């Protein structure tokens, strides 16, 4: 059984001899890839593909999470505080990438609801899906095409506080904004399907560790109906849909199921998202992916990682519907030995 078949079995609630394992999106930062691959790290022109293939082969991962790619970003200048380049993305927002951290917004796509109302997303139909096709045609990994929807991307392009306030102050404009972002991402989803994706992952953080950022009733009235339309369109191509959100999303799991979501990823134990518990309540309708705390991989030791992973597999594998992964992705600050230990346990703990 290859990785693709193993993940598809999990989605059908069929328990496999070994639990499927892998990460969403890029999965592993370059720092981790270099540390794990050592001399096998490639520095050539095709290094991104080769290194991501090699680390998955070496760890025994089943999943790859490519994106349809856009044009190169436009360099705008140097950030005066951080000294890093500022660049405009294809959506029109300007960001910078300070060392050792996530991308920071420098200038949003709109400064007022009126500006946002007249904002139009770019044409994404010319984006490049050739890498997606390459993963599908040349490997046995489950190709989990990664894209966004309207909420997480929405606040990344506007700034978090501005976005949150406008959900109340400019409600109609925000609904139109979600529709615009989702329409563009649906085009990317359909391109991914054409390029051979095995499933679509919608990355859309909705919550803190203590609950959703906004009232679940707001999501039900203003956001989930639009998300449901997106999922419905994707599923017309017979593709399963995964949903990633950090944080505690328990209050909206029934809504995500109603939207047609097949699998929920992250399931951070720090956010009370315990997969064995969630499976007991929603396991008939949803596959769960995640549950290994990224911080455990950063600050724990190999024994702790092995014990936690073994216990999780034991409790979560029964009846299928479980994919082992970190609760986000393997970050640069994780210990390579812990990452290897987590994957090795999955390969040892056979049914």
């Amino acid at each position: 059984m290859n990785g693709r078949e193993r993940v598809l079995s999990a989605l059908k609630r069929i328990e496999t001899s070994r639990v499927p394992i892998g990460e969403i999106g890029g999965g592993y930062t370059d720092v981790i890839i270099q540390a794990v691959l050592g001399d096998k790290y490639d520095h050539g022109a095709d290094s991104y593909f080769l290194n991501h293939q090699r680390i998955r082969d070496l760890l025994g991962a089943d999943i790859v999470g490519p994106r349809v790619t856009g044009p190169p970003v436009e360099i705008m200048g140097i950030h005066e505080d951080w000294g890093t380049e500022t660049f405009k993305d294809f959506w029109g927002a300007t960001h910078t990438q300070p060392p050792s951290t996530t991308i920071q917004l420098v200038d949003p796509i709109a400064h007022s609801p009126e500006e946002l109302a007249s904002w139009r997303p770019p044409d994404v139909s010319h984006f490049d899906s050739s890498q997606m096709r390459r993963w599908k045609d040349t490997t046995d990994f489950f190709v989990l095409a990664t894209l966004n929807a309207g909420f997480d991307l929405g606040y990344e392009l506007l700034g978090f506080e501005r976005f949150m306030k406008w959900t109340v102050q400019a409600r109609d404009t925000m609904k139109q904004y979600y529709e615009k972002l989702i329409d563009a991402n649906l085009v990317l989803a359909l391109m991914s399907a054409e390029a051979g994706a095995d499933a679509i992952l919608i990355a859309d953080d909705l919550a803190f560790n203590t609950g959703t950022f906004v009232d679940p009733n707001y999501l039900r009235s203003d956001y989930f109906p639009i998300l449901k339309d997106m999922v419905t369109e994707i599923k017309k191509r017979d593709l399963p849909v995964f949903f990633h959100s950090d944080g505690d999303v328990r209050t909206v799991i029934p809504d995500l199921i109603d939207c047609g979501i097949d699998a929920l990823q992250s399931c951070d134990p720090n956010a009370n998202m315990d997969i064995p518990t969630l499976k007991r309540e929603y396991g008939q309708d949803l596959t769960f992916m995640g549950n290994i705390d990224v911080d455990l991989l950063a600050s724990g030791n190999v024994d702790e990682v092995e014990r936690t992973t073994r216990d999780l597999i034991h409790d979560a594998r029964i009846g299928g519907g479980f994919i082992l992964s970190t609760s986000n992705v393997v970050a640069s600050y994780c210990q390579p030995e812990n990452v290897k230990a987590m994957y090795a346990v999955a390969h040892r703990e056979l049914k």
Partner: protein
Amino acid sequence: MWPSISIAINQLLNEGMNSQQILDEQLLSGMAIVGERFKRNEMFLPQVLMSAEAMQTAIDILKPHLAGDSEARQQQTVIIGTVKGDMHDIGKNLVRIMLIGAGYEVIDLGVNVPAQRFLDAAIKHKAAVVCLSALLSSTMNNMKEIVQAFRINSDLKETKILIGGAPLSREFSQSIGADGYAPTAPAAVEQVQSYCEE
């Protein structure tokens, strides 16, 4: 931005209520309800943000009156920032917003803040409390350096240091000599309030 607040406060002042009473009975009591409801997931981030913005507007209107009121309490200052090497700010911003809502003067140093900037700001603003945020295991250890710098500075020995962020714990806070750890934004406000009442 909030014209109705200006009208309401001026009306209360004209009715003879003093500025401290308005702050305590009209504003802080309202924000306490916001904090409680947020903690119980009955109120959410957008509403907390807007409440805090309204509160800040009200405080700005009241400031000249508070300065002229001999019975008014001095507003205490809290310094907040994400430690060096770490650019995460959602949690830190939420704490800032809720502290403003609780009536504190908050100096936000932003993200990637080196130890010396925390010290300089604490001295300059005579801060009662310094709140340190970190989201990464790799940057949380930078907090130790900051705490040590405060502890050896004779002007800052009394300054309380509160830490918060996903990878942290009460045990970690104790191990680096901080005064406390707050797992959530409402808990951070409660901790700051307890320090300021000591």
